């Protein structure tokens, strides 16, 4: 038996290089050549959760990503961490997807793959960070979903108790599988691949599907299925007046006090 577990991962530019991402002001296109890509950090936490559940109850962990051909690398890394099977949804027809079109695409793939007991997502990505894909996929699949998940405990193989982060504290909720959980950073420490597990990647299954393979109607995916329209991306510059003080501590303190007064802090 065992549990069927799905982990959704997105390949994103490395956050250390965000400042190198150039924006073509004319076209509004994002130029990220040379910027290394990684698995969205929270998606590693999502995968770690999936792997732990599998280790406890037995089962199979599938990782899925919609993205360009190079996103296969992210899936391979996930396989090296211990996932059993990778699915890359890759087609020009998927390009330009907003969150709704992304959720739709994932939905058609899930439908084709069959039943899952547990679906894990990151709570949000580091690049666009809308935190929408998880809840929207759950709506499509019509299964319960919790965001901001900090902790998951199994009451039995079909029932979970989940700790969900709130502004000033947390909430504990109980739900039945199948369910979709969007995880936060503190939930676990993702494992690193081992030499052994890296060598096993080549033996694992990697499926690449196009839109027609998953039976996704053209009007619900990619740019066509996206009600959101980007009107432009521009660099964010704060024009702050600057004063940097070196010199003696006494002088510095005096100037700082004067500034705090000016700002009305005292």
């Amino acid at each position, binding site marked *: 038996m065992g549990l069927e577990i799905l982990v959704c991962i997105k390949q994103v530019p490395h956050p250390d290089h965000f400042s190198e991402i150039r924006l073509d002001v004319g076209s509004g296109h994002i130029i990220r050549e040379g910027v290394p890509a990684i698995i969205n950090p929270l998606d590693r936490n999502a995968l770690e959760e999936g792997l732990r559940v599998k280790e406890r109850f037995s089962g199979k962990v599938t990782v899925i990503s919609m993205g360009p051909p190079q996103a296969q690398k992210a899936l391979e890394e996930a396989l090296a961490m211990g996932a059993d099977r990778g699915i890359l949804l890759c087609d020009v027809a998927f390009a330009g997807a907003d969150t709704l079109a992304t959720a739709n695409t994932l939905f058609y793939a899930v439908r084709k793959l069959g039943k899952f007991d547990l679906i894990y997502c990151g709570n949000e990505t580091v690049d666009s960070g*809308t935190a929408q894909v998880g809840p929207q996929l759950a709506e499509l699949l019509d299964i319960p979903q919790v965001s901001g998940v900090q902790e998951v405990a199994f009451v039995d193989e079909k029932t979970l108790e989940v700790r969900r982060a709130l502004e*000033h504290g947390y909430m504990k909720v*109980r739900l039945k599988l199948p369910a979709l959980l969007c995880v936060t950073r503190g939930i676990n420490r993702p494992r690193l691949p081992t030499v052994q597990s890296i060598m096993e990647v080549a033996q694992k299954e990697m499926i690449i599907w196009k839109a027609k393979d998953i039976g996704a109607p053209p009007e619900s995916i990619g740019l066509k299925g996206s*009600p959101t329209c980007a009107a432009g991306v521009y660099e964010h510059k704060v024009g702050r007046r600057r004063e*940097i*003080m070196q010199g003696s501590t006494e002088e510095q303190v005096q100037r700082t006090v004067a500034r705090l007064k000016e*700002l009305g802090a005292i």
Partner: protein
Amino acid sequence: MAEYKGILVCGELADGKLASITTELLGCGRKLANELKENLSCLLASDAVGGAPKEAIAFGADKVYAVEHPALKEYQADSYMQVVGKLVKDISPRVILIGQTSMGRDLAPRLAFRLGASVTTDCLDLRIDPGTKLLVQTRPVYGGNAQAVFTSESMPQMVTVRTKAMSPLERDASRKGEVIPTKIDIDTSKVRTKILETVKEEAVGIKLEDAPVIVSGGRGMGGPQPFQTILKALADLLHGAVGASRPPADNGWVPEGLHIGLTGKIVAPDIYIAIAISGASQHTAGCSGSKHIIAINKDPEANIFREAEFGVVGKYEEVVPALTNKLKELLAG
């Protein structure tokens, strides 16, 4: 097709009172409503809404839909969705404003999905395009390194708005408006998650998000001690709160809840004092909305000095206690 008209704010209560994010949404909604010459409505849903509807009017609402039901005691997607979904169907608003809070982050994408509309999350700026009457939505991307502008032709136009990004109106108790008690049936069999408990983690002193001043420490603090002594003393004096970059939280020097940045809290105080923080973009993503940033760092090349408007180059062990003492003297008269 139905005619979409007016602005709807999905309100929230905090400890039985109108939440500050809701007053901010009403402030923003009022402006948009005036530009469109349409109405501003507010939905308040809870087990008991108390005086909050009157408050919502004092902060700018024309109409308040007050929904009371035991199943609404705490936010749960499956019960709230039924209420919001029904109201939106009944009044077909042009624009829906939701807070970028734990409730809003959960509710907005689902609602958008059900309505087949788009939603732009975490907006910092909103305006109406006078030609098309569409909402022009600005939100940060790439951890605040860039901003993106979105529009959508789908109706209703939905956004979530970052806390503190908008200003509430001056409270005016004489403002006129209508409270509409609204009965909406909730099918509790559709509520698939069961709340077992809700725990409030009491912040000692002022909450980070509400603090007018934040005194924030980084890895350069060297350990937990100075957070509780040196930083706290300065924060207390300025009626502020202590915050941190990620390494202190990772190292367990401070609770996780104090961690500010891309993967932590996003704050926008009047004054943000960054001490022994290098100013990585993932950190400044969480504080760049502050009105004023002051940096104290021993490294004159530290990136934080590029974000700050006022910087002190020095060791915090020397600068901060001296600063605190000077302020104390001053306040003592």
